[in-house]
């Protein structure tokens, strides 16, 4: 296995400029190998996609990942679960609250810990707020991928408010480690709920503005409708989850279908991809980039709905169950998945009777979602590759872990 040269440190033969192009690798005369990344504006981090192109047509796209691999799972085998929570922040760093949440739930399940009522509400509030923040980034950067520069500034303006709220709650703006095993680290600061309500009143009409600005923009629709179509069968087979799966018409959301925490108490819809017509622009196909994008826009509305219900129902009380710090994990294992903004984040935690887990495995939604890239990016145009990768909405921190 070691015979293969390292792709990081050796470059491919210079197929554009060397005369011997029709070599043994079977490239046709017009074909060209070209690296999109690891430093590229629209690979959303250090992803490298090796493209085989024929003019503007992409014959094959092979993603190469691992540039951000930080051995999170190995670290997890050497730390106690509560110590591992900051590491989960750094997986999907745009949805750190959700990562904390899912990991805490997995460990709580292993330990059999009950979370206090108020803590559960706070967790849902944080998870949904972070879902909005994450989808805002997805919306903005997708605009950037399409060459619309302005959306990202609007998205970040709104996200700034959410980060202010997070900062008020836990002092951090990106990696929170707020949700922890047994509840949350601190109670909400005063007037948090009022400010949240204010934000929701401000934010909800903004989504319409985004739709006017980008979602229904003719050029944007032309760029994304019917591009990178993933059928429901393919989506399930490749293990796609989250908005990517829903955009393919699969009405599946763990929060509704296998509810965890207190999600069964809330009223909300699962937006799915829809074909063109009836309010949806013409040319849109179920499972295309536009639907993947638009599902996220709709999910923001649903998150707002959930948040409003939370505000109405949040009780007073404890925010953290009593979990001893040095608790020994039972010699059992648990696999738990929760619905993250980008799909189902799963943790397999194997205990061996010591305080430190024997094995922590993270199933990143982006990892699975990205694996379909080479299947979809075949026979598309060069400009569609950023469109497709952007619509899958990956965070390399989670792909590489």
């Amino acid at each position, binding site marked *: 296995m070691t015979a293969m040269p390292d792709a990081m440190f050796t470059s491919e033969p210079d197929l554009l400029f060397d005369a011997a*192009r*029709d070599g043994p690798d079977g490239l046709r*005369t*017009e074909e060209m190998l070209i690296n999109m990344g690891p430093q590229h504006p629209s690979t959303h981090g250090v992803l490298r996609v090796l493209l085989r192109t024929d003019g503007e047509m992409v014959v094959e796209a092979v993603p190469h990942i691992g540039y951000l691999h930080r051995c999170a799972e190995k670290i997890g085998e050497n730390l106690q679960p509560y110590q591992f929570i900051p590491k989960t922040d750094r997986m999907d760093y745009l949805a750190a609250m959700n990562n904390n949440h899912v990991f805490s739930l997995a460990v709580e399940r292993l330990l059999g810990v009950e979370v206090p009522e108020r803590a559960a509400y706070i967790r849902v509030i944080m998870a949904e707020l972070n879902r909005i923040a994450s989808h805002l980034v997805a919306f903005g950067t997708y605009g950037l991928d399409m060459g619309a520069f302005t959306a990202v500034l609007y998205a970040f303006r709104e996200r700034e408010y959410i980060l202010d709220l997070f900062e008020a709650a836990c002092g951090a703006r990106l990696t929170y480690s707020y949700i922890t095993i047994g509840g949350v680290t601190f109670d909400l600061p005063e007037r948090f709920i009022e400010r949240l309500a204010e934000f929701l009143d401000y934010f909800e009409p903004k989504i319409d503005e985004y739709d006017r600005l980008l979602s229904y923009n003719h050029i944007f629709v032309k760029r994304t409708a019917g591009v990178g179509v993933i059928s429901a069968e393919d989506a399930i087979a490749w293990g796609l989850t989250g908005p990517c799966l829903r955009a393919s018409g699969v009405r599946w959301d763990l929060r509704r279908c296998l509810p965890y925490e207190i999600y069964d108490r809330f009223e909300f819809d699962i937006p799915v991809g829809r074909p063109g017509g009836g309010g949806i622009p013409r040319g849109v196909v179920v499972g295309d980039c536009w639907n993947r994008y638009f599902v996220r826009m709709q999910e923001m509305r649903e998150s707002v709905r959930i948040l409003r219900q939370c505000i109405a129902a949040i009780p007073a009380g404890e925010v953290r169950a009593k979990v001893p710090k040095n608790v020994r994990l039972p010699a059992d294992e648990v696999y738990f998945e929760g619905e993250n903004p980008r799909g189902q984040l799963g943790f397999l935690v194997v205990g061996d009777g010591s305080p430190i887990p024997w094995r922590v495995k993270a199933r990143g939604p982006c990892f699975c979602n990205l694996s379909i890239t080479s299947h979809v990016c075949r026979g598309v145009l060069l400009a569609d590759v950023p469109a497709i990768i952007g619509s899958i909405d990956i965070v390399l921190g989670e792909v590489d872990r």
Partner: protein
Amino acid sequence: MGSITLMHYLVLGALLFCCGLLTMVVKRNAVGILIGVELVLNAANVNLVAFGRYRGAGIDGQAAALFVIVLAAAEAAVAIAIFMNFYRHLTTVDVDRGDLLRG
């Protein structure tokens, strides 16, 4: 350096013509040959326009030059299309290797 006469233009035309012809002969790259052709056509154009100006031919020289430009554009388009085909089959634009006489 006196005033410029027809002679000057004709000599310049001859120079351009020779260079174009030489380019056509010397280069083996198909596109290079095309460039030579363009030079030759330009030489002809210079002569046409100069005759038109100095021999009282008036607008005729310019009209002829206009047609030459149009033909050159057409010729270049076809030539490049042929070269692309050639290149696709033989992965070279070296005309010396295009002696297979088959597709």
